[in-house]
């Protein structure tokens, strides 16, 4: 999927001139052209990613503007602290990968490797936190409309008995929420399922992109360990970092839209 | 602003012509007129470009001109402006007339008589304000339905609802169409101007029998229409059980899936079936008796005859016990 697979990577001889350095692909005239092409390529690709997510943001906008109270109420079920932690973790990882690009440009392979590892760890941390959040939701039954265990049914008799027993959201037994789900107007309750449908789609798709980013980081790490990057050969790190920044940016939008609206 | 449809039109015609079926509703002529406007403009443009192409191809063919043509301009701002502006003006006109017609189509008259059209896979049921119901009626379907019966000369609006998937109600002779979307009501309206029967189609793909989700529209005079409404209010208790059963059969759209002429469709044909022995999907056999028929209506997918899919919707809550008895009597009568 990366658009930077063209350059044949090897040791950097660094003496440009008219003999082709090993990491200059045969169809490019110069390293500069190769870099420019790669840059335009990755930005175009990121544009396609934005459009890929756009439909979900449009769905969010449409349903929220039609049912604002439903979304406000639903947001209570999301753990703002976890979300904030995730935001911090991703921001940190963006910082380390950006620093890593600089390391690659300056040939500081040791620092580059360190930063790639930290970025990876942050990404992993993000996924762990996400996993915990998802597990909590499955336990609580705060799920999308069509899930068998969702508590957001038109008819309360359709909610499985064991769900009613262990979901604290169902009867608000801990008084955490403004109202118990079972006491809500049925239509309102059913629309909550739509909020969670959008929540799982958005965060799920985002999570898949984080995983892809992690694979990308591992690939960069392996190449860094082989000593491949340097002042005339850092394209892959630069472009990989751009991808990572977009993944972070999408989360920066998701977080307030989903977690901070109650 | 006077809606175009109210102006007397020279082109109004009731017969079918080369392109269209006959016009049978007030708004049909405005649609046809708009069509002919676009058609003649397009035809003129088409002939012009084809003629120009043909003439140039012949006049400047290589055999005559040779390999190297003489110099000629490669662009001309004035010509290009002319041939951009003129088509644009025609398009503005097309949009405008289309928009006006659309406004007419969307503004349902206040005094419209509202019929509810209930769509489901794969039949139409029509419910009238007086509580009367009818269905189907397409002449190729032989389903015994009355169709959507409407009075001549009065605006009729149709409230569209679906209980399952997307459908669309299309009456070519009235030039009306509107999708039927589950979860909401959509509307269309028309004012019939001709007596007679006209086909009604489903125009949004809805599954296997989409092509059989057909009905008819029957336009009656006001007097006949009122009489028809009265005749529909049938007290089933006054009829012989088998006849009452046939009324229940018609009103619930059974013919959409069950034939009574010996041909299997989505569901098995039912003539001659009462009392017979059938093999179920799991290999066991049952007798088609009163109990089996009752169970098939209330819990249809528990004992499905082999070779058919468990697709029948349940009529629990829709048929009361009397209606079920009448149906059983009707099916029994099909053994003769």
């Amino acid at each position, binding site marked *: 999927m990366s*658009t930077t*697979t*063209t350059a044949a990577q090897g040791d950097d001889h660094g003496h440009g001139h008219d003999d082709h350095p090993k990491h200059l692909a045969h*169809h*490019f005239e110069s390293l500069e*052209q190769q870099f420019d092409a790669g840059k335009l*390529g990755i930005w175009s690709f990121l*544009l*396609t*990613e934005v459009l890929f997510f*756009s*439909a*979900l943001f449009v769905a969010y906008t449409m349903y929220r503007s039609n049912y604002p109270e439903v979304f406000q109420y639903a947001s209570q079920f999301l753990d703002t602290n976890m979300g904030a932690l995730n935001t911090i973790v991703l921001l940190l990882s963006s910082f380390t990968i950006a620093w890593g690009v600089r390391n690659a440009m300056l040939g500081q392979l040791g620092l580059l490797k360190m930063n790639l590892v930290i970025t990876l760890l942050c990404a992993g941390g993000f996924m762990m936190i996400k996993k915990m959040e998802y597990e909590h939701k499955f336990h609580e039954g705060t799920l*999308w*409309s*069509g*899930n068998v265990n969702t508590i957001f049914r038109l008819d309360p008799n359709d909610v499985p008995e064991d769900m009613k027993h262990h979901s604290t959201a169902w009867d608000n037994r801990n008084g955490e929420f403004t109202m118990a789900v079972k006491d809500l107007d049925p239509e309102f309750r*059913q629309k909550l399922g*739509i909020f969670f449908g959008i929540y*799982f789609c958005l965060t799920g798709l985002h999570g898949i992109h984080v995983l892809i980013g992690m694979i990308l980081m591992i690939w960069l790490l392996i190449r860094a360990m082989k000593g491949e990057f340097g002042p005339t050969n850092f394209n892959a790190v630069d472009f990989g970092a751009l991808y990572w920044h977009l993944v972070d940016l999408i989360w920066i939008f998701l977080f307030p839209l989903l977690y901070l609206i109650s | 602003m006077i809606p175009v449809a109210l102006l007397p039109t020279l082109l109004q015609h009731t017969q079918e012509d*080369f*392109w*269209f079926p006959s016009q049978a509703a007030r708004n049909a002529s405005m649609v046809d007129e708009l*069509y002919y406007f*676009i058609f003649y403009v*397009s035809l003129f443009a088409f002939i012009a470009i084809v003629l120009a*192409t043909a003439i*140039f191809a012949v006049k*400047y*063919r*290589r055999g005559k001109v040779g*390999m190297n*043509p003489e110099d000629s*301009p*490669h*662009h001309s701002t004035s010509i*290009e402006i002319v041939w951009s502006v003129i*088509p644009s003006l025609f*398009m503005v006109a*097309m949009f405008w007339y289309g928009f006006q017609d659309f406004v007419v189509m969307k503004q349902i008259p206040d005094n419209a008589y509202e019929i509810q059209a209930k769509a489901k896979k794969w039949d139409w049921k029509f419910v009238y304000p007086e509580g009367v119901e009818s269905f189907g009626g397409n*002449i*190729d379907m032989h389903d015994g339905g009355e169709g959507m019966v409407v009075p001549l000369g009065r605006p009729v609006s149709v409230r569209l609802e679906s209980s399952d998937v997307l459908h669309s109600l*299309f009456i070519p002779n009235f030039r009306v*169409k509107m*999708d039927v*979307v*589950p*979860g*909401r009501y*959509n509307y269309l309206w028309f004012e019939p101007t001709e007596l007679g029967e006209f*086909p009604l189609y*489903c125009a949004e*793909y*809805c599954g*296997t*029998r989409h*092509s*059989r989700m057909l009905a008819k529209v029957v336009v009656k005079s006001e007097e006949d229409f009122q009489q028809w409404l009265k005749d529909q209010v049938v007290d089933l208790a006054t009829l012989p059980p088998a006849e009452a059963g046939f009324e229940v059969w018609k009103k619930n759209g059974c013919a959409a899936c069950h034939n009574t002429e010996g*041909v299997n*469709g989505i569901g098995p044909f039912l003539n001659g079936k009462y009392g017979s022995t059938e093999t179920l999907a799991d290999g066991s056999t049952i007798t088609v008796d009163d109990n089996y028929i009752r169970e098939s209506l209330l819990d249809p997918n528990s004992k499905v005859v082999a070779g058919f899919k468990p697709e029948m919707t349940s009529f629990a809550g829709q048929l009361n016990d009397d209606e079920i008895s009448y149906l059983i009597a009707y099916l029994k009568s099909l053994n003769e």
Partner: protein
Amino acid sequence: MPSTNTLDRTNYLNATKGFMSWFWTIDHKRLGLMYLWSVIGCFMLGGFFAMKIRLTLSGDVDFASQTAEQMNAYNNAFTVHGAVMIFLVIIPSIPAALGNFVVPMMLGTKDVAFPKLNRFSYHLWIIGAVLFVATLFIGNLDTGWTFYPPYSTGHTDPSVITAVLGAFILGFSSIFTGLNFIVTIHKMRPPEMTWFKMPLFLWAIYATALIQILATPVIGISLLLILVEKTMQIGIFTPELGGDPVFFQHLFWFYSHPAVYVMILPGMGVMSELFATFSRKPIFGYKSIALASIAIAIFSFIVWGHHMFVSGQSELMSVIFSALTFSVAVPSAIKVFNWIATMYKGSISFSTPMLYGLSIIWLFGIGGLTGLFLATLGTDVYFHDTYFVVAHFHYVMVGSALFGFLGGIFYWWPKMYGVVVDNMASKIGCLMTFVGFNMTFMPQFIGGSKGMPRRYAAYGESAGFDGYNEASTLGAMVLMTGLFIALGSLLWSLKKGKKSPSNPWGGVTLEWMTPSPPPEHNFEIDPPVVGDPYDMTLVEWKGEEEGFLPVNPRADDPCVPDVKPSA
């Protein structure tokens, strides 16, 4: 043997041998050829289902006795026909098969910007194709290529899952192809070739690529949502769960309308090349055509609602979409006028490629003009979901896009394979295809305006549509025969075709400045980039054998091996 033909020497076709040298190639020319044959193969698959449709509608189908199985078979046929033709054939056709082959050469470069991504695009196409074909064996696919919920998500077999997955992957193939072309055209043009000195085919490919990268991701997410709705009942399109089925239609058509311009723009690009070359004249109104291509690409994004006038969307939206839809008609009309004006005082050759080009004037004329009836609200309400629409889109997608593809294949065939196909058989193939096409689809306009609805497995006798269906099927037989003759003429040429010089037609775009077929890296020496891609005086006719050669050849010009360098 022309001196500029390399079939008896090393060229890109024979430079390396073996399955892996083709399957794992990054050479844009080999990838282009593989796409070409793959697309032709899938075209025949789609055509098989088209025949099934036509034979069902005009065969001995008895409305009363048609069984559920037969109805299902028909519903599958139109679904698979549409999905295969759109996703596997027409959308990739010109960009992936012809564009890949020609674009780098037109730019005077060795390859596209990202050759490995190009290879990956092709492999993704294969995976998508396999998934589609697998679907045929898994089960019933009868949603129509449009996959509208709630039917597709709640009333269908699991085969919908593989089909949707296939379409999703094909979407990525298309995105990466477009992305590659955008970067190639931006970053790999020779310095003398400024934007307004590019051949119009490149403008067309560029505009197409813009649409590919901006619109395709939206169908990607829409299909993903169908998958998630069907497998997990996420609820977003299902009314019983609080969702909205019309929302899907908006998402779907947001891509699928611009997608039709992905289909037609490259065909229009081919038209510009054909009309210039075969009139031996610069194209009339170059700048207008270039800008019109971009305008079409931009406007294509703001008209999708014209597929939804009767869906229940608000009246205001319908009115706005109708008005905007006309905006797309004007640039298209301008192009047609420009092509015709190119012929004025030209030297017109009736070569096979030009015959396809001339056919397109007729076919796109009808296809484009019938679009006006559908842009207009008052008439679209009537025509929506009737055969009028089916006829309209076949005139533009087949009559224009496919004919553009065929014209382009015959035009660049000498460059691809070193042989020219321009004989009685190829011309009859074109003529028969043209006649057969009109015979097939003209009756459908009339049937549609008589009220014949789409996607029906059979019509009752009283409906009165039988005559139109029978006429259409007869036409389909002629169409199919014509296409087979055309294909036959191409295949025959591979064995027995007349060897082609570097420039048999007299074009002056750079791909003609290298031998036929080209060497592996396209050009032995850098081609001369003089600036005007349509200055026909740069080449002159040297007879049947040598074709057109540069008037002022440079030293060591491989296209003119025996000519001394100019003084």
